[in-house]
């Protein structure tokens, strides 16, 4: 067994960019948040165990409910799965790391600091207390004046940034870095599940980010998107649930992929209909973006929409039927080895069936009217989120623990853990199906409601489930030191990670494996597996590709994340906690400045750092064979930006078409001013493309002149824009608090202006390097990548100009 001796210095973990170590960090951190969210849940269950209980005040109860939900959804479920994805996916597809290791590290540190912000909100005047859906208008400053919500929103913004970086990284890795012969169709179900998940993340989370931004600006600057009649609750519902429903599948699919592969392993046979499972995931992912209205049946969205969403919601259940049938069919006449991971997987399938079927009830408008907002809904989504996702992911922890540590866990204790968890789970949540007249989120209830027995039962189940998890931690922690060596492939599994020693060496593969035409890997000497020729001897670290855990370290990802944390904390904690005070932006400037300065230093250090990424040639990269990794990453990021700006523009359309009147063309915004800014930006696009032409032909002077012109035009654009803002703000035309035309104008053009400013910083950086003689001839890629961003910013303005100045 290969086990490299590496110093257990803390700096190894702080500065690591190795995918396996980051995977371990994700897993441990998500388990920490799991415990935190679980303790909140147990306290809530204690509060509800008897009627008229006053263990928690109503305010604190609401905070616990909200933060429990937010932590579980954003800081536990997906990160738990992405701990595995980080560790396992490169091994399963035959890559040595993710495409952008430092970006991967940065994703993790953003995740960590975002969670810290959410938890800190308890100490800053009270955590968010509105439920995880953060419904408007309760989120307005008038109804929730605490800065805790601002800090919580900052935490959410930071984690969306983390998720977006992670999505781009995984997409590029999985499309561009598969081992030779590892065609997409040959990937196991788990990588497919992650691929579909990050596709949904990429397009769902920007909508949430835009919604959070609008919410934050409403709260910090007193704008009116969510506190006006024309926007308000319905606008929030739309942009939130456009993200929120795919999010359910985002947290579910990794577990389904994991369960599917585990079933295959423990039944020692190929998964029945694996391609149908994958196809069903793709179908469900697509449909998931057109079902969000079923969360809004009681908002008066109209009969046509109601019918549309009923049909799509019922339709989205069909792919899940296919998945379950395929998994069940895989078990028919199989000799299942009932290891802990198999038990958790099978248990998760059973619980998922219950959660799924009860979800179909809610697709019915009539039943939804009766059941919405009751504990029936709480039971339904916990059967999905905890029953399917958490149980499946715990199964994954048992499944891959030997691979990650090189040690076996105690199987007997793990089985007791499963039995206690399964029984505790059902005692906890099944009674909630029967509490279908009890409103969710109430902090207590009267004795004569008839809810006491079922609530007490639920609380007992909650403690059984919670205490059972102690067995998990005791087992894994003890096994780390005392577990017997696992060997490379204790489960006789067939996916590629099991071909490596446990734990795998830092560089993963001595030689990148080649996958046969039929998709088999030809490793292992286990009965029932063809072509067994013995495990590769992973102890051979050599042939020039090995590197240790201490190589590829970078201090900058954690510094960038910390600077962002400081900056966001600074702009959120200064808000006065007094509803009678008019809303004014009051950041805590020292923190804001510290964060900004540190951020600039960190980004500069990041860009100047010599960081080598091992890139293999001759890998599978369909369908993006001819697209370089960085370019694909930038286009993927721009795809997310399209959704982000699409939501901002959509919000503008929403409030505008809902408003009975709107200022006439030319009455507020000078058409000449907009025209001038448009010409300036269009010209800057021309100079940006001429910079690329100059770089390609090796003209340093041409490159410098073009970049200088681009920078100058950017300055001109912002100068005109700033003058317009100042004029509108100081000449009584309107203020930011003067209605939706101002709100939509300032927010949308402000966000665009920030993008222009970021582009100008990039131009400056390119200019400095151009002076040093870089980017000429074959070294032009940085200029091309900058251009892709700059032209995108130009395209956004091409739409903003007519929307705000001409119609």
């Amino acid at each position, binding site marked *: 067994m290969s086990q490299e001796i590496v110093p257990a210095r803390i700096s190894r973990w702080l500065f690591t960019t190795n995918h396996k170590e980051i995977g371990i960090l994700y897993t441990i951190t998500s388990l920490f948040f799991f415990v935190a969210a679980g303790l909140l849940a147990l306290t809530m269950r204690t509060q509800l165990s008897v009627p008229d209980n006053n263990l928690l005040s109503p305010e604190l109860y609401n905070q616990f409910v909200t933060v429990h939900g937010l932590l579980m959804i954003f800081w536990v479920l997906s990160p738990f799965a992405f701990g595995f994805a980080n560790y396992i996916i490169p091994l399963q597809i035959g890559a040595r790391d993710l495409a952008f290791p430092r970006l991967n590290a940065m994703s993790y540190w953003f995740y960590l600091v975002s969670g810290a912000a959410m938890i800190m909100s308890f100490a800053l005047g009270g955590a968010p207390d509105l439920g995880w859906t953060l419904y408007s208008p309760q989120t307005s400053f008038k109804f929730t004046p605490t800065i805790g919500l601002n800090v919580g929103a900052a935490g959410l913004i930071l984690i969306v940034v983390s998720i977006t970086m992670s999505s781009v990284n995984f997409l590029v890795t999985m499309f561009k870095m598969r081992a030779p012969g590892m065609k997409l169709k040959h990937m196991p179900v788990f990588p497919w599940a992650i691929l579909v998940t990050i596709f949904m993340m990429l397009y769902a989370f920007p909508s949430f980010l835009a919604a959070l931004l609008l919410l934050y600006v409403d709260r910090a600057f007193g704008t009116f998107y969510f506190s006006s009649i024309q926007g308000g609750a319905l606008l929030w519902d739309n942009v939130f649930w456009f993200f929120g429903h795919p999010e359910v599948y985002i947290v579910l699919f990794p577990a389904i992929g994991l369960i599917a592969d585990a079933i295959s392993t423990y039944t020692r046979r190929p998964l029945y209909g694996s391609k149908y499972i994958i196809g069903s995931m793709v179908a469900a992912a697509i449909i998931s973006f057109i079902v969000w209205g079923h969360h809004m049946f009681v908002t008066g969205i109209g009969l046509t929409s109601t019918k549309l969403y009923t049909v799509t919601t019922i339709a989205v259940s069909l792919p899940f039927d296919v998945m379950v049938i395929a998994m069940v069919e895989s078990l028919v006449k199989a000799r299942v080895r009932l290891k802990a991971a198999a038990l958790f997987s099978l248990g998760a399938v059973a619980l998922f069936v219950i959660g799924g079927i009860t979800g179909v009830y809610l697709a019915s408008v009539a039943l939804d009217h009766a059941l919405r907002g009751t504990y029936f809904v709480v039971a339904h989504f916990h059967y999905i989120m905890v029953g399917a996702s958490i149980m499946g992911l715990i199964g994954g922890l048992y499944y891959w623990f030997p691979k990650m540590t090189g040690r076996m866990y105690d199987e007997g204790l793990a089985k007791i853990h499963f039995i206690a968890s399964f029984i505790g789970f059902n005692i906890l949540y099944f009674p909630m199906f029967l509490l279908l007249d009890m409103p969710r989120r109430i902090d207590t209830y009267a004795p004569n409601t008839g809810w006491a027995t079922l609530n007490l039962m639920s609380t007992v189940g909650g403690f059984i489930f919670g205490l059972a998890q102690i067995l998990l931690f005791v087992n894994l922690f003890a096994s780390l030191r005392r577990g017997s060596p696992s060997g490379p492939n204790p489960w006789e599994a067939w996916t590629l990670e099991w071909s490596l020693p446990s734990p795998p060496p830092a560089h993963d593969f001595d030689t990148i494996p080649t996958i046969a035409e039929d998709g088999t890997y030809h490793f292992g000497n286990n009965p029932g597996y063809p072509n067994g020729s013995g495990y590769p001897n992973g102890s051979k670290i050599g042939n020039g590709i090995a590197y240790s855990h201490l190589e590829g370290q970078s201090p900058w990802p954690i510094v960038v994340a910390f600077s962002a944390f400081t900056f966001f904390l600074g702009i959120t904690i200064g808000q006065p906690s007094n509803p009678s005070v008019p809303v004014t932006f009051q950041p805590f400037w020292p923190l804001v400045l510290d964060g900004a300065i540190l951020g600039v230093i960190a980004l500069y250090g990041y860009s100047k750092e010599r960081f080598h990424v091992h890139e293999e040639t001759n890998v599978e990269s369909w*369908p*993006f064979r*001819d697209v370089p990794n960085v370019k694909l990453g930038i286009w993927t990021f721009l795809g*997310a930006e399209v959704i982000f700006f699409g939501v901002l523009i*959509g919000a503008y359309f929403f409030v505008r078409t809902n408003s009975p009147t709107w200022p006439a063309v030319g009455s507020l915004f000078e058409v000449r001013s907009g025209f001038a800014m448009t010409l300036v930006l269009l*010209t800057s696009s021309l100079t940006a493309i001429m910079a690329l032409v100059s770089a390609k032909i090796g003209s340093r002077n041409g490159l410098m002149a073009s970049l200088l012109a681009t920078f100058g035009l950017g300055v001109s654009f912002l100068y005109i824009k700033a003058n317009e803002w100042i004029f509108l703000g100081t000449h009584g035309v309107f203020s930011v608090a003067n209605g939706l035309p101002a709100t939509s104008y300032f927010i949308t053009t402000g966000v665009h202006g920030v993008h222009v400013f970021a582009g100008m910083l990039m131009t400056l950086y390119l200019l400095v390097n151009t002076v040093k003689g870089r980017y000429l001839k074959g070294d032009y890629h940085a200029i091309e990548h900058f251009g*892709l961003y700059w032209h995108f910013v130009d395209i956004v303005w091409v739409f903003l100009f*007519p929307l705000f100045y001409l119609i």
Partner: protein
Amino acid sequence: MNTTYLYLLVFAILVGSTDIEVNIVSLYPSALGSVAMLFGTIALSYGVIVSILLGLAGMKALLIASFYQHLKYEPRSLSSWVLIGLVMASLLMSLVFIQLHVH
């Protein structure tokens, strides 16, 4: 065509269409519900003018993406990839529009 000339031609079209956008504003009908006449013969309602403006914006975006961002010369897989974002954003706007205006 020499790429520099192509870029200049695209720039000329972008500026020209922006000029058309600005001048179209002068055609706005005096009252909502009425129409303005183009060349004395073509009736243009407010909705038609807005559609023309957004159509011109779309055309300009297409030109920039195709030629300045080189999507026209990239593999079809990449341009399709980029289109997904647009489809998603359009989906969101379309369904919300149905909610608001189709009962």
